């Protein structure tokens, strides 16, 4: 095999690995939208906070990595529940666009809070792992771990939604927000639980990202827009669509970034997105 093809294959494999991670990130956002009908513009900033939480606990308080990560998931889950209770709940009956913008305000607030607390320096967890070598390809180990953990997270969420009482309540609310209160369900409790669950998924995403990337207050902006596009492309609230869209987008970013600069990968992905909107405006798997 020519060396060129090896690198291309490596880009494709990396794209698949990235797709798993994006699938996890879009799942949390989709869950919240599907149930509460609110888009968290600051979703990627919650992930950023989670990354800092893991970083601080691990490097400054000397916690072992796994407990630090578990705590990170907990922190973001609590943050998600608090976000719903104190920010989303007061505007739940307001214009939809106000709900969107209030989380936009949180984006500034969280970014600024992170800058105040940690400065704008790039931080690194400093975890080194030997790459996994398959044939002539070398694949970075954190990516493989992230891929496996992300898929496990997606599967766990799926089981939670289909097999547990809470999950069934969440799905019931998402099907008909108006009728469930009449059946004696307290919708706000379900909303808070969903927000915490969405936050936990963001927290898990943070734990996986912190293995691969440097942390800085604006890191949310590097993958936030991609996650939004994935959710729209898959059909907002449609989790299976989000899953498919994640892998398509990841290929564009990874292979596009391989042939050109990484920024062009994003640009090509966006152009593809516009093209799909002409073709299937309800999203690739969305029902009309």
């Amino acid at each position: 095999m020519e060396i060129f093809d090896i690198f291309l294959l490596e880009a494709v494999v990396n794209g698949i690995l990235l797709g798993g991670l994006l699938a996890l990130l879009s799942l949390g956002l989709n869950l919240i939208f599907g149930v509460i009908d609110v888009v968290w513009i600051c979703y990627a900033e919650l992930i950023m906070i989670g990354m800092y939480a893991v970083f601080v606990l691990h490097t400054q308080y000397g916690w072992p990595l796994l407990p630090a990560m578990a705590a990170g998931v907990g922190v973001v889950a609590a943050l998600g529940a608090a976000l719903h209770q104190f920010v989303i709940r007061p505007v739940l009956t307001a214009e939809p666009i106000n709900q969107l913008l209030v989380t936009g305000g949180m984006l500034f607030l969280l970014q600024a809070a992170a800058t105040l607390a940690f400065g704008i320096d790039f931080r690194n967890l400093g975890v080194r792992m030997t790459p996994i070598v398959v044939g002539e390809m070398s694949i970075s180990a954190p990516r493989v771990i992230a891929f496996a953990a992300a898929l496990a997270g997606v599967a766990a969420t799926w089981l939670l939604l289909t097999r547990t009482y809470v999950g069934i309540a969440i799905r019931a609310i998402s099907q008909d927000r108006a009728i469930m209160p009449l059946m004696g369900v307290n919708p706000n409790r379900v909303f808070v639980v969903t927000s915490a669950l969405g936050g936990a998924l963001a927290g898990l995403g943070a734990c996986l990202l912190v293995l691969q990337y440097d942390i800085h207050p604006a890191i949310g902006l590097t993958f936030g827009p991609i996650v939004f596009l994935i959710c729209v492309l898959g059909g907002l609230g449609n989790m299976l669509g989000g899953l498919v869209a994640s892998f398509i987008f990841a290929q564009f970013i990874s292979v596009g970034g391989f042939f050109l600069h990484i920024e062009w990968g994003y640009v090509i992905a966006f152009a593809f997105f516009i093209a799909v909107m002409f073709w299937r405006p309800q999203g690739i798997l969305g029902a009309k």
Partner: protein
Amino acid sequence: MKPLAWAGVALVAAVPFTGIGNYPLHLVIMCLLWAYVYTSWSIMGRLGMVSLGHGAFLGIGAYAVVMLWNHFGLSPWIGAPVAVLMSLALAVLIGLPCFRFRIVGHYFALVTLALSEVTRLVIVALRDYTGGSLGATPNTALAQGNPWSLAAVQFSDKWVWFYVILGFWLGGLWIWARLDRSMTRLALEAISQEEDAAASVGINVTRSKLFVTLISAAMTSVGGVLYAQYQLYINPETVSGIGISLQMVFGAIAGGMFVMLGPTVGAVITLLLQEGLRLALGDAFKQFPALDLAIYGLMLVLFIIYMPKGILGAALEWRARRHATPAVAPR
């Protein structure tokens, strides 16, 4: 109201004669410029099309004009129309699928949000020409003893810029008022309430929405041109991307996007907040550069929760209620 409005304009126009220093005059100019940009955004935003992507148009305006001047020696007099045409083309490319296929509300906001980020990425990716994240400076046409260059649209006197931007601001308000009285506004208000019903009474949904979007995009990109020519420095972070796009939305909302001077009041508030914090915090401001952003974000959250119509909107409503009370209860 008419004479009062003229008196107000005269009062603003007299600002350079009051002998305020260069820095306060600069603040007034920035205030007018952002007021113009926020007004451009609100033309679309108040009719139910909340775009989080106007940074794209601002960025195209700023970068097109500077790139054409620096690399091809084309005067901003040619660059500005080119920038506007590029913005219009982009607005059609995004607007047409969105409006034809009913991409509204959250979907529209997210699509436009991605648009503004992608524009920023393109500017960064073309770093060989644009200077990437370091920004760009238009080549100066000013030499010793030559403070003006009409061909390059560069003026070292601040008062020139003051009147140029004042003119655009008034023009923006005029367009706002013109649209406010038009059938298009009524059509779009109907559309934002119930799109199917509006279409069933014969409103061309796609065309009405696209018309307003094109006006808003063109005005915003002119704002970008003005920003570049006045500041003589542009940066992908400050003229495109999510930050500036959200800032436009919040400026318009904080002031009140449903009233003509609302976005202007929003621009004044944003600026007063920034400068007030800078003065109040003094040295602490230097130590904690993000403190103003934190307070800004917090205020926006509180604004949207407690005063969704904005300061001016809430004030006008309060006045209307006070005037209405005696008429309702005459006994």
